């Protein structure tokens, strides 16, 4: 199975994702630059964390114009899986692939801590290896992770089971404790916590590996 990790200028979790896939999931991964225009050879696109273009202006605001984004959009429209983590989540909301937006954390400070989460929907291609309402722990590391959407959007997210992960102790002020959401079709997931930092015991936990295993299982089912 072939994973593409899209690297923007200023991405800093691209290698971490690459190693999570190659060393721990034992699948094929390629780091592709933001100038790539064709992603059709891949099965999954991963958009990593970091500070694309310095996150100057707003997280993800400049990255959404990178040449690669047209290919990402086409990939998503074809129903293939796109996972945005942290800055990747911000980029996906800025690009309109996911609803809502990520504001400054309520306390206006960066937070780096392991965070207990609940799996709200284990029926997606990113979460099938979890149980519904399973309690897991993943590290967060962000200054702008406070998810916001208006009430109508929130109602839709709920109705269509688009909320994938919630925080057990809301660390940043997110609406409805949201830590991760999918698009309506379910093939685009954005999440603030970092699954790629929890794939080996030495990192403090392995709950994150199940996100990637879910993708692998979903893929095996389709081939």
């Amino acid at each position, binding site marked *: 199975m072939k994973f593409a990790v899209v690297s923007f200028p200023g991405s800093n979790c691209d290698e971490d994702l690459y190693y999570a896939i190659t060393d721990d999931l034992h699948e094929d991964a390629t780091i592709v630059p933001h100038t790539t225009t064709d992603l059709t050879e891949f099965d999954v696109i991963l958009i990593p964390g970091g500070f694309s273009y310095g996150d100057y*202006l*707003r997280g993800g*605001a400049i990255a959404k114009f990178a040449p690669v984004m047209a290919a990402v959009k086409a990939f998503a429209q074809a129903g293939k899986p796109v996972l945005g983590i942290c800055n990747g989540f911000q980029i996906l909301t800025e690009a309109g692939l996911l609803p*809502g937006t990520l*504001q400054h954390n*309520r306390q*206006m400070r960066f937070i780096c801590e392991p965070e207990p989460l609940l799996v709200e929907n284990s029926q997606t291609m990113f979460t099938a290896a979890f149980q519904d309402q399973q309690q897991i722990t993943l590290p967060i590391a962000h200054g702008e992770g406070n998810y*916001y*959407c*208006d009430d109508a959007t929130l109602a839709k997210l709920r109705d269509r089971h688009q909320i994938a992960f919630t925080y057990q102790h809301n660390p940043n002020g997110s609406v409805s404790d949201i830590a991760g959401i999918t698009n309506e079709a379910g093939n685009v997931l954005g999440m603030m916590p970092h699954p790629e930092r929890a794939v080996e015991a030495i990192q403090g936990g392995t709950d994150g590996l199940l996100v990637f295993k879910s993708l692998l299982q979903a893929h095996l089912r389709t081939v």
Partner: protein
Amino acid sequence: MFLAQVHVTYKPSILDPQAVAIKNAMHRLDFDQVTAVRQGKYFEITVDAPTSDDAEKQIEAICDQLLANPNMETYRYEVKELANQ
């Protein structure tokens, strides 16, 4: 040459954590008469456009595409001609 002054602010319905933090800091400094704070971004953009209309069009497009996030922000701008140097 035209100079655009652009203000990007949060929509009134949005709770802006930064503005809240600033207002709290003012109260801690005993500026108790401050009743509300809104906060935004301010840009001065110099455009080498042929006409004022053209400059406005460009600024409008830049705001829509880049400077403001329509989920939570609105913008306003003024364009004025710069004296030739």
